[in-house]
């Protein structure tokens, strides 16, 4: 039998002025199950709380209804009070008779009647409340960072710095990411490698960080605090722990004609290679697509030459399984393919390059040793045209609908560097809008125009046609209302950037949501920008949206802070108001899992004793209470009613409905 206590708060005169609290108390005292009812001036005050606590003890209450202000105000207060008196905190219900009654009604009779109904409704609900115990799940104190670019590096360093172990999984043979390929950084024009490589070294040397280079995430199981991740360490045919990175093999390898991806194919490398001098780990890797030994069984030059004996042609992919408490996605971006933009003649002339290729052409470690030369004839270009928004802000289906955000700034940087290094070049930048929000960004852009005399032209290039060693550029100048025809030596395309192709399958593995452009969605666009809606998954860098380096680094650190916050806990307290499935009723139809935004529902094949005493294996849903956030979408999707929500059960809500409509 229920023993319910009802506590009506006056809230000074806030409630008592419009609601006859005595009448409410007296009427509710008569409700079935109610054994105690009282009212008090300020129920939330210490003496008010003591009143509740005493009643719980003296009256042996099994449920408490407090008619007071909104539960958003003091539900936590009253639950705590009940808990301290030995009553399960989830056996407390609040009837909101202030915000939703006394404050909106003037007529005392009407307000009193409504307060009684609201009280009765809370009583009806509390009759069906079950004591809930917030579950706890242990937290594995190790984080996984997927992607070893600047975002991943920064996040890993910050987490490691706080004393937690971090693993970085990088699919390339070295960490560093796109930033290693960039020459200078805006708006300060400091050397990218100079600021990045110390961080790469730091990552390599930090005892808390382990790098899985040339590796990919294969499978993810588990949930926040307790993920199990399988990592595929791809065979690099070089024993990582033995290779000294001397680089002798990369000089002697007879297979010379492998396009060098680090320089975006602008030059070549050997079949065994170290991507660049500052690679971390500085270990050689054999490219199985080009290695003669691996493909034909003959050669073996590198093995012969390696004094350390690090070459192992028999190496196989290896799967490592590891536990993590949190996973950071830092998969980064790539420039889009320009197949859809034939008007710019990218595939027709080597002198039409993307901005990233241009970075390599300007870089001292690049294919031209830092001297800007046309790829076609290695001559010095005198007229360079930069085209902005190539594939960005494009809803025609050829490109991406969003603004890639970084192009305006790096184009200004390129233009400025060109003019600085080679004052004899004419530089044109065709823009739609120049977007420079950021500290010192606009100043930087204005400097390009004002001090370096870069020709910024409002308008778009309509056509680039290679002709007689020149590139005929046809464009509109909207401000002068004329069409321009420029004979350029080089055209540089600011290609839109898109999330890395590995992001989509990864999102599926992580049950993290993505938008239509394959950027990961954040848990809240304003308030939780570095978390995925899936608990325990965090977002760092361009996987969430286009970002420049400063922004990426700040997001990476923010992300690390969130991860540290999670890993600092020994246990996670779960919200006990979560969904649960009645296995006997579950059909295993997957309707619930299909609507779950958190991937909290999995299916298990379970053996059940049938009514006729035979055993039958059925597929049934199982909710992970650590992952479920308690929205209840599944409870309605479930046709059999097997899925229900603690704290807001079907029966509780129906009891409330009944009480209101009485």
């Amino acid at each position, binding site marked *: 039998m229920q023993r319910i206590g009802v506590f009506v708060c006056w809230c000074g005169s806030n409630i008592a002025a419009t609601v006859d609290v005595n009448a409410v108390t007296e009427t509710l005292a008569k409700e079935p199950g109610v054994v105690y009812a009282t009212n008090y001036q300020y129920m939330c005050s210490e003496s008010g709380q003591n009143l509740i606590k005493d009643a719980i003890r003296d009256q042996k209450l099994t449920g408490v209804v407090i008619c007071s202000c909104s539960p958003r105000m003091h539900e936590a207060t009253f639950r705590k009070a009940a808990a301290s008196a030995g009553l399960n905190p989830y056996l407390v219900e609040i009837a909101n008779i202030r915000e939703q009654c006394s404050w909106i009604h003037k007529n005392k009779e009407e307000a009193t009647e409504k307060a009684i109904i609201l009280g009765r409704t809370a009583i009806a609900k509390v009759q069906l409340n079950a004591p809930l115990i917030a579950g706890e799940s242990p937290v594995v104190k190790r984080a996984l960072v997927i992607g070893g670019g600047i975002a991943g590096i920064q996040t890993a360093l910050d987490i490691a710095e706080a004393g937690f172990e971090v693993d970085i999984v990088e699919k390339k043979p070295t960490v560093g990411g796109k930033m290693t390929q960039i020459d200078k950084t805006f708006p300060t024009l400091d050397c990218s490698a100079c600021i990045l490589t110390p961080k790469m070294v730091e990552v390599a040397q930090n005892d808390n960080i382990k790098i899985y280079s040339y590796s990919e995430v294969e499978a993810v199981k588990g949930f926040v605090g307790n993920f199990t991740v399988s990592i595929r360490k791809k065979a690099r045919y070089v024993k990582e722990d033995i290779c000294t990175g001397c680089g002798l093999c990369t000089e002697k390898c007879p297979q010379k004609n492998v396009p060098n991806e680090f320089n975006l194919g602008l030059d070549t490398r050997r079949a065994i290679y170290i991507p660049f001098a500052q690679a971390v780990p500085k270990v050689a890797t054999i490219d199985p697509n080009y290695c003669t030994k691996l493909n034909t069984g003959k050669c073996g030059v590198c093995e012969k030459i390696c004094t350390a004996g690090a070459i192992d042609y028999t190496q196989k992919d290896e799967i490592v399984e590891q536990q993590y408490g949190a996973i950071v996605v830092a998969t980064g971006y790539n420039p889009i393919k320009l197949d859809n933009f034939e*008007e710019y003649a990218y595939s027709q002339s080597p002198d039409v390059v993307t901005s990233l290729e241009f970075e390599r052409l300007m870089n001292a470690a690049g294919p031209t040793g830092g001297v800007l030369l046309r790829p076609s004839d290695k001559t010095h270009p005198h007229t360079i045209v930069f085209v902005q*928004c190539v594939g960005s*802000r*494009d*809803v*025609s289906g*050829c*490109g991406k609908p969003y603004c890639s955000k970084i192009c305006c700034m790096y184009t200004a940087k390129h233009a400025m560097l060109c003019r600085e290094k080679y004052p004899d070049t004419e530089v044109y930048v*065709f823009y*739609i809008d120049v977007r420079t929000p950021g500290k010192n960004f606009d100043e930087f852009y204005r400097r390009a125009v004002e001090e370096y005399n870069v020709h910024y032209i*409002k*308008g*778009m*290039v*309509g*056509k680039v046609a290679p002709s007689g060693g020149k590139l005929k550029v*046809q*464009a*509109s*100048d*909207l401000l002068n*209302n004329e*069409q321009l025809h420029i004979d350029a030596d080089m055209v540089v395309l600011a290609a839109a950037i898109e999330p890395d192709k590995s992001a989509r399958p990864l999102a599926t593995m992580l049950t993290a949501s993505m938008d239509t452009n394959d950027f990961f969605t954040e848990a809240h666009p304003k308030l939780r920008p570095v978390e995925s809606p899936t608990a325990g998954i965090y977002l760092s860098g361009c996987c969430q949206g286009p970002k420049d380096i400063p922004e990426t680094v700040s997001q990476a650190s923010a992300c690390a802070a969130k991860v540290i916050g999670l890993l600092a806990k020994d246990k996670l307290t779960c919200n006990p108001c979560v969904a649960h499935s009645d296995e006997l009723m579950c059909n295993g139809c997957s309707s619930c899992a299909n609507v779950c935004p958190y991937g909290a529902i999995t299916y298990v094949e379970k053996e059940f004793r049938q009514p006729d005493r035979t055993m039958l294996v059925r597929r049934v849903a199982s909710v992970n209470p650590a992952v479920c956030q308690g929205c209840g979408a599944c409870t309605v999707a479930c046709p059999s009613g097997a899925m229900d929500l603690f704290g807001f059960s079907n029966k509780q809500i129906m009891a409330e409905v009944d009480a209101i409509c009485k």
Partner: protein
Amino acid sequence: MENLEIARELERISGVNPRKCMKCGKCSGTCPAYDKMEYHPHQFVSMVETGRIEKLLESESLFTCLSCFACVERCPRGVEPANIIEAVRLMKIRPQNENHLHAEQIPELLDENLPQQAIVSAFRKYKK
């Protein structure tokens, strides 16, 4: 000067929403007839948007457009400037109860410089 009603009618006829234009000028950048035109593709879009139709109707540009559709092909926002030009052209050459033309009259009116579009349009309308 401004005639927004006609502008909206043009939008209806052409099926083009000029407000989708982000004023990048790629249409005019790609236009092969640019120099022959008083108003350029991006201006057509902009002028229809703001209702400055009369100037367009008076302009020769209407018939200098080759309808090559390069602007439609290149537009990153799917605005379709050529369609809007065609709509303005229709408004010029096919107003109700005006400039009636009979098929028999065409040979004598035929002029080397008459744009192909106008001939075809005239035939389409008056062949019955």
